[in-house]
């Protein structure tokens, strides 16, 4: 079967968001991120797994019937599966697209594992981590200055 025929397994959308170039096997993680977001509960979603891809060999793909993806969800995607492409579709065409890069900073998402860090006792304070490397594998809490592997702080990161 040709790639174009495969793609039709998920119908084209007139208006929505496509998350593309997800490395095969990682699509399910993005599903998890989306399913946990309260404002995404009623959004129609299709998940395609293991499509052929020139770039990746195999890839996963997600289509969402909605106009905007919240910055919070994009931030999570950037941590868990950096490198994916997010496309906004209007009138069946790609209206805009952006490649999601590993973040330099992560705000108000991760909890610091240092029990003595002030962000764990002053819960109203937004947590703030900065990446120590390009790929964001190690991050530093901007408050207590402890360094962590990102996978220690986020369940979906390998």
């Amino acid at each position, binding site marked *: 079967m040709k790639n174009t025929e495969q793609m039709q397994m998920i119908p084209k959308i007139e208006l929505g968001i496509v998350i593309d170039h997800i490395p095969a096997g990682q699509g399910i993680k993005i599903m998890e991120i989306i399913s946990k977001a309260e404002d995404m509960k009623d959004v129609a979603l299709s998940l395609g797994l293991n499509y052929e891809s020139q770039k990746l060999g195999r890839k996963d793909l997600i289509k969402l019937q909605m106009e905007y993806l919240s910055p919070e969800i994009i931030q999570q995607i950037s941590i868990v599966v950096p490198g994916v492409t997010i496309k906004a579709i209007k009138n069946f065409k790609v209206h805009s697209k952006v490649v999601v890069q590993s973040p330099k900073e992560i705000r108000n998402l991760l909890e*610091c594992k*240092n029990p*003595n*860090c*002030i*962000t764990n*006792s*002053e819960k*109203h*304070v937004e947590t703030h981590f900065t990446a120590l490397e390009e790929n964001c594998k190690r991050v530093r*809490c*901007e*408050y*207590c*200055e*402890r*360094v962590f592997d990102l996978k220690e702080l986020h369940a979906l990161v390998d």
Partner: protein
Amino acid sequence: MKKDLISMEDLTLSEVNDYLVTAAKVEKTPLEERVKLLPGRIMAALFFEPSTRTRLSFEAAMHRLGGSVIGFAAKDATSVSKGESFTDTIHTVESYSDILVIRHPGEGTGRLAARESFLPVINAGDGSNQHPTQTLLDLYTIQKDLGKIEGLKIAFVGDLKYSRTVHSLIRALMMFNVTDFTLVAPESLRLPSHFMRTDQPGKFTFRETEHIEEAIRTSDVLYMTRIQRERFPDILEYEKVKDSYVLTAEMLEQAQDHLRVLHPLPRVNEIAYDVDKTKYAGYFPQARNGVIMRQAIILKHLGESI
């Protein structure tokens, strides 16, 4: 823009040098002139955990500049004991003062206060994280006593695993091109390896040993720390090592003439009292330098020149 002093990691070499230069100017200024520098200014010293020396040193510094001090010395005496949040305490006290000095057992409290407040914030110790004014006064003491910092041979003795003073000072000394370190510690209290990490391989030497004698013979500075009983999971282990790092006047007969023995204080038994009378003892003048450095810090962060 207001300027905070939260972490040595935030400072460049030239900024650190600037503190050292300002401290030297403070020291040269006669006391009767110094006391005219900050009339009517108020420093809030918020000590959420007891720390007698650091608090008194900051208070003395402010009084010597002609300013005054408000604050508290333990959290039991504050609204925090009634359940007030740290940030609310900061927002309240900032209406009463011109500069905040904060000591707190929670790590990251200095940074949080600095982000919350419109006043300059000085971190006077946040848990086991940072204590930048101690590091700056240590650098000032070394420079003053030995005429320079760069190229000195510096030995650290005692608890190198948990002592934030040691960690912070080693990183700062590396910035000043101190390349030769001797680390004297029992096996269980060795310096964590990430403090020796550098992007200039081969430049720095860290000699690790369990014997203090070599350090005494070869070093320019012997920086002593207290070994705390509670750091040992096994009390027998503590009993084994606790006396191996007691420095005596007799041991110092092997030292070079110009050796300086420093200690952040308080000492328990790691420096025998007979060392106090030797020419090597630098720890009480070091405490005096603390007041001078803190005057420099207060002046700089209130935007006053000297």
